[in-house]
């Protein structure tokens, strides 16, 4: 098995300097998958991945229980659009956390507040579950940062 961590991505993908490095080209799909996995792991560990995931799930759950025809949501006023506004806000701040992890403190606090605000406005916050997930996710995003080093390096993200 090759060691994807010691290679640069271009080597792992088969864009290599050496003409025909057999170790990289023998099993190109496997190498590609391993490279994708290690890339995803690095991506996951450089941003508050799990908190943002919970926030996005919370938003999707709230929208699921308040999903109306988009025409009605636009014309029907607050009671029809609240699910899209609150759930959409949660999804948006989850994505912001993923794509721009610098804003994690702000995104975490806003997601937390939206999750609380969804309770009185959007079906009791998706029947409580959406609000709870949003609060947990928002707190996780806000508190994300450097941890004490430990022997086990498998967890994290």
């Amino acid at each position, binding site marked *: 098995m090759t060691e994807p961590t010691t290679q640069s991505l271009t080597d792992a993908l088969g*864009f290599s300097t050496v003409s025909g490095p057999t170790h990289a080209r023998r099993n190109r799909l496997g190498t590609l998958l391993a490279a994708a996995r290690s890339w995803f792991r690095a991506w996951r560990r450089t941003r508050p991945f799990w908190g943002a995931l919970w926030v996005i799930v919370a938003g999707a759950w709230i929208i699921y229980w308040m999903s109306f025809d988009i025409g009605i949501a636009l014309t029907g006023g607050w009671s029809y659009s609240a699910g899209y506004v609150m759930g959409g806000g949660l999804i948006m701040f989850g994505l912001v956390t993923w794509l721009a992890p610098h804003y994690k403190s702000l995104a975490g606090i806003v997601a937390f507040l939206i999750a609380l605000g969804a309770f009185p406005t959007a079906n009791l916050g998706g*029947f409580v579950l959406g609000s709870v997930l949003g609060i947990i996710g928002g707190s996780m995003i806000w508190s994300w940062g450097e941890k004490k080093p430990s022997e086990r390096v498998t967890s994290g993200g």
Partner: protein
Amino acid sequence: MSPRARRFERTEPWGEESGTLSMWGRLTGRLYRAAYAAIDRAAERSAEMKTDSESVRRGSRKRSLPPMILGSAVLVAMFGAVSQNALAVNFTTGNAKFKLYSNYLDAEHAAGYLAPTSRQGATDCDADVADVQAQCGVTELGIHQAKLAGLCGIATENIPLVGNYSLMITAGDDIPDSYDGSSIPAGTTTDPSTGKLTAGSLGSAISATNLFINSDALSGYGNKISGMNLGQSAETVGDSAGLAFEGNANQLPRTGAFGLYARQLNMAGLNGHSYGLNLKGNITLPNLSIKVVPGAKTQADCS
């Protein structure tokens, strides 16, 4: 720069390299250089990300606990406020078919007409099968000021791999196992002349303003309904009840279509299949409880 990208890099001076006479050669050379430079940049960035991810261990720290606890406490406080009639919430569902039960509905100024459901792609009208095009005919019943003695809503969802799960929302008085359809359920106190809720039942009633129910089946015992007008032209019932119906063009009441208006509509033992419970105003839900339980549930499971 990777050797692959360097291969397309300019080595000879402008205008003297091979292939420069053909427009195609110049263009593709430029495109290749740009593409390989982009790949190189992406690789560089992910290599940076990788060293960054391996240098320090990051994650959600212990200081996420205080906001979590605070948030849960606020949520519990809001839930309590809703249960004690102190906080009004917006409660609107447009998705699945609900089973709806109530001991008594005391509706001032109710208006109804026939309309399609507010959401496409809900559950099929006859069978409980998902159908993306399903849009069913329902009664759109609007109530200006509604008081409900007890409320139990059950929505059953078939979750893949897990099976049936029911969401049960109960509020107000307890719901008995069944209604007989010809009398007021025991324990519900009503005014003998007007049929409105009084005394104990009024105190624990759920009150809602501008409540709209989309349902394809509603049954119950009509008790002392007054000022009822059946067959009123549909576009006027909203004005009679002081309500504004909303929706897209084919959901709004049409001129000359069948409409219903009642100044005071009382229904005991209300039992309905509803597609949505929409609110333009607010609702107060005393003794609120929300449960998610496995299996398909019926009225007998409400209390």
